[in-house]
């Protein structure tokens, strides 16, 4: 049912390349709190994040790189119960700048 392997097309990184961002260097607006083992919700973000910002490190923890973030807020809502993600809006003026929206 969830076999999407046949879907052609670019990787998400290539999609993000078309977007405009103003990155607030050194001040990521999303942080994953230190953890030993990620919850199922946090782990789900490695596939669920539409910008592919979440990845599972070899050491077993989930990491976030928020530079390509589309600011949808999905990770904030999904991990609200576990409190593993600290989510703020980027500082005023920073982050994704939609050209078309």
């Amino acid at each position, binding site marked *: *049912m*969830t076999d*999407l392997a*046949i*879907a*052609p*097309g*670019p990787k*998400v990184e290539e*999609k*993000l390349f*078309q*977007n405009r961002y*103003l990155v607030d260097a050194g001040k990521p607006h999303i942080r994953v709190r230190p953890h030993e083992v990620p919850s199922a*919700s946090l782990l*789900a973000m490695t*596939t*669920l994040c*539409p*910008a*592919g910002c979440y990845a599972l490190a070899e050491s077993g923890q989930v990491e976030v790189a928020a530079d390509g973030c*589309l*600011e*949808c*807020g*999905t990770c*904030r*809502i*999904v991990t*609200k119960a576990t409190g593993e993600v600290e989510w*703020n*809006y*980027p*500082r*005023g*003026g920073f*982050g*994704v*700048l*939609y*050209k*078309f*929206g």
Partner: protein
Amino acid sequence: MAEMQDRFDVIVVGAGPSGNAAAYTLAKEGLNVIQIERGEYSGSKNVQGAILYADALEKIIPEFREEAPLERHVIEQRMWTMDDTSHTGMHYRSSDFNEEKPNRYTILRAQFDKWFSSKVKEAGALVLCETTVTELVKDLTGQVIGVRTDRSGNPIFAKVVILAEGVNGLVGQRSGLRDEIAPESVALAVKEMHFLPRETIEARFNLRGNEGVVIEAMGTITKGMTGTGFLYTNEESISVGIGCIVSDFAESNVTPSQLLEAFKAHPSIAPLLEGSEVKEYAAHLIPEGGYKAIPRLTGDGWIVVGDAGQFVNAVHREGSNLAMTTGRVAAETVVALHRRGEEMDALALKDYERRLEATFVMKDLRKYKGIPALLHANKGTFFGAYPRLISQAMQTWFRVDGIDKKTKEKAIFRNFRETRSVWGMLGDAWRVARAWR
């Protein structure tokens, strides 16, 4: 900032359709308004399909058609139920929609919102961009009296704060005005902008001039999740996207960008996009919990409008018109209280809710209050089984292969019976009818 005063009449948090509608209405009536937006400009953080419903904007800016950046007016609606290789469509196209004042338009939100914001400024509001509101300021009695922002400096004070902060609504949530949205009550939609020459779009979609087409699609495209796909024609581009309920996404292994790729690759969609140049990839949450998910809307010194109040009619794919209407009605409430010199406390602001009851906003949301739960509980049936059955029936019926029509008819009915059973189908019909009425 020279023009920044001690105390405004109203602070509007956010510059999407609800915030712009509120700020414009307030400023037009002569109130002292400051609107605070975190984006570089109004629209730079905002994502929508997007369809503009003229009626809601006409009630705010009657002459908007003369100057707003509009793409195409919609003359044709295609509703598709899809399986992996086909779609079955119900199309409605009418030249009546080529009217002097068209009813619906496709728009690009970044451009449209920027224009709406220019009208807000013209009306006399102070619009402060690139500034994120971080929290509400309350007095000792709990009355909201202003906001703090991520700019250094003192809080900004006002008699009332209108929270038009969108689906994520951090300010209201962190101040305890409302709960976090549940993952079952919100959809994640992803969208791409595909550019093509306008002649190509007009030829592909059978359009003349500024006529436009809207496609709304459901079925196996969402891989068993509750959701829909869409494709809208703009002047020189096509907006294509797909969205599903967040909790469904979380339970599946489906990546949103892959889901969009699969939708774009569907044999009914791919030829429409062929040769296009993609210029943007966006994602956004859509509050889809409906009537039952509406949070508390007013309190001492605050009002909630737009997506922050869950004002989306998911069944009809309407949101921006509910946003503009709630923004306008909130502003009208505040204007009336201001004129009478009344305090903006919870009791007085409750009038906003009474006024909303009289509009299509609450009437429509109440009408469909059972739909979100129904679809979510039966997603396999409505987004998988029925679309497949319909496609198979159509294929059986239209394929000419020497089998007589009576036998085909029997095969179609047997397929429905075996998949859903007679009682199952009667139950589905009953549940839909009950939730729909």
